[in-house]
């Protein structure tokens, strides 16, 4: 049993079974960053879900007055160069951003999980090949790759999500590989092999479920970075032209920023708040997963 100098076990006292979730939750709260992030995300999600209630006219309704300053004529956050209400656009933009982030992160999580766990569990030549490929993808400047692909293949939102997801997986793969490599040497995996369990079942029923936690924390960061990448793409004009995303709003407001700052500033703040929420939740999950923070350290 791994013991450190300062934490020699006093007794084998373990938290009760159903106390496990509660213990993890209390650690999450203790991380301070986690709960703040979760609160932010709940608000963002509520806004996205309730968009039709907040902005009944939808995001594309053209208004009479262009570039209206915030607070004028009932437009709390002003209007853009086509007279569209900024608040409505931002509220609907939340939906797009969340979907892009979650879909891209899910793709990257799944690819990373499969590649990493196979490389880590089987080892040997399989690992050599897969982890070299992973490292290479990690080094390659993904944003430029995304630019080329989107510029070549088209900038529909589906493409954008898939391409972001397919370039973001190396980080998850590295995490999962490390997990699988350490799990592989754990006694219970050896025991399962000795008992005659097939490698495929060991991989999917034991290695992945036991090793996936750090990937969940990482997925939170992946969602955040997917949202940022999409906004970057939109900003250079490669976003989906049919979707009101926050990046696109900043792009739209760029030319008039000296006269109508609100068109670019508010969507930017929306991005910051949402991305921050995911970062903070990721931080909270990492805190929970860090064995050093476990309580009942005896």
């Amino acid at each position, binding site marked *: 049993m791994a013991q450190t*100098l*300062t934490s*020699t076990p*006093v*007794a*084998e*006292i373990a938290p009760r079974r159903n106390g496990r979730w509660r213990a993890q939750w209390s650690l999450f709260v203790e991380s301070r960053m986690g709960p703040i992030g979760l609160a932010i995300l709940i608000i963002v999600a509520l806004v996205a879900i309730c968009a039709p209630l907040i902005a009944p006219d939808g995001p594309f309704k053209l208004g009479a007055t262009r570039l209206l300053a915030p607070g004028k004529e009932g437009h709390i956050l002003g209007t853009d160069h086509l007279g569209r209400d900024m608040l409505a656009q931002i509220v609907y933009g939340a939906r797009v951003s969340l979907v892009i982030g979650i879909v891209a992160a899910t793709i990257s999580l799944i690819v990373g999980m499969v590649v990493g766990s196979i490389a880590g569990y089987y080892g040997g030549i399989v690992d050599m090949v897969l982890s070299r490929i992973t490292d290479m993808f990690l080094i390659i400047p993904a944003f430029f790759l995304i630019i080329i692909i989107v510029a070549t293949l088209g900038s529909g939102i589906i493409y954008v999500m898939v391409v972001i997801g397919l370039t973001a997986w190396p980080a998850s793969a590295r995490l999962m590989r490390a997990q699988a490599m350490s799990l592989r040497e754990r006694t219970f995996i050896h025991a399962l092999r000795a008992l005659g369990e097939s490698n495929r079942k060991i991989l999917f029923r034991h290695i992945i479920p036991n090793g996936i936690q750090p990937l969940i924390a990482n997925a939170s960061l992946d969602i955040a970075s997917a949202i940022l990448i999409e906004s970057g793409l939109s900003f250079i004009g490669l976003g989906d032209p049919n979707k009101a995303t926050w990046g696109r709003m900043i792009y739209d407001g760029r030319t008039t920023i000296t006269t109508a700052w609100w068109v670019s500033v508010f969507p930017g703040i929306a991005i910051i708040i949402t991305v921050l929420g995911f970062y903070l939740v990721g931080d909270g999950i990492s805190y929970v997963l860090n064995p050093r923070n476990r*309580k009942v350290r*005896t």
Partner: protein
Amino acid sequence: MSESLLELRNVSIRYRTGRGHVSAVEDVSLQVPTGASIGLVGESGSGKSTLALALMRLLPQNAEVTGEMIFAGENLVTKTESQLSKGWRWRKLAMVFQKSLAAMSPVHRIGQQMEDVLTIHEPHLTKPEREQRLHDVLTSVRLPNRVLRAYPFELSGGMMQRSMIALGLLCNPPFLIFDEATTALDVITQTQILKEIERLKAEYNLTTIVISHDVGVINAVTDTVAVLYAGQLMEVAPRETFFSNPQHPYSQALISSVPRLRGEKTRLAGIPGSLPDLTNPPQGCRFAPRCPHATEGCLAVTPPLVEVAPGHLVRCTDIPLREVVA
């Protein structure tokens, strides 16, 4: 018997945790005479390492120490961190840790780290004097000088453990604690290092506490054995007496559950049951729930540590009874 260098008086240690207090050490009183070598033996969860760290005042923040630890006439429990660093730690008490590979910085040379420690305690030494001292301590643990140029990962387990002993001897402390110092080593290396420890005790005139879960180690390098179980001191006895005539049921079980190299092969008996939950320790004797001789009285009241013979103390209500039988 000479005067005590160290005396523990009713030392109790509790950890505050999310699930309440863990009573790791309870009411331990122990005298360590100058020149003595006390073996502190106990299984995992006995509190032996907690006690060692408490002596160096290295326990984590969530630990509370009560009682007195009188070292050379002064109470260590009330010393401040800066007092301890100046003149106590390493000058008067030093320690050899378990798990030696991680016990030094991995990216600094061993010599550099040792020299650094020496400079802090004896800043007046010149560079050649420091090098001489390093050479001396290395020689006394039978290590070549090239170890000074090595990084921890370049040394074998045995050499690294010798380096840790050399580090402990660096400032000539009168008192040295060995905390499971040979546990991770192979049989032959372990025996050789224990022999070095025996020799160094005489050479440096050391008083030592040797902590181990292995009665074989305790047998090899101590003159007095103290048995800890679940934080309570169960028996203190001269080594010969402890091995030939242990009085506490736990001591007896501990010795008889180890297979022997020679003699009649009899079926070994383990100790049934498991360690009590120290967040909610049982009333009375903590061994009572597993003790074959336990009575209702044992579960109600903690028996006192009674001197049954000179230098032989036992915490058990059953003692007079069984002595009559014997």
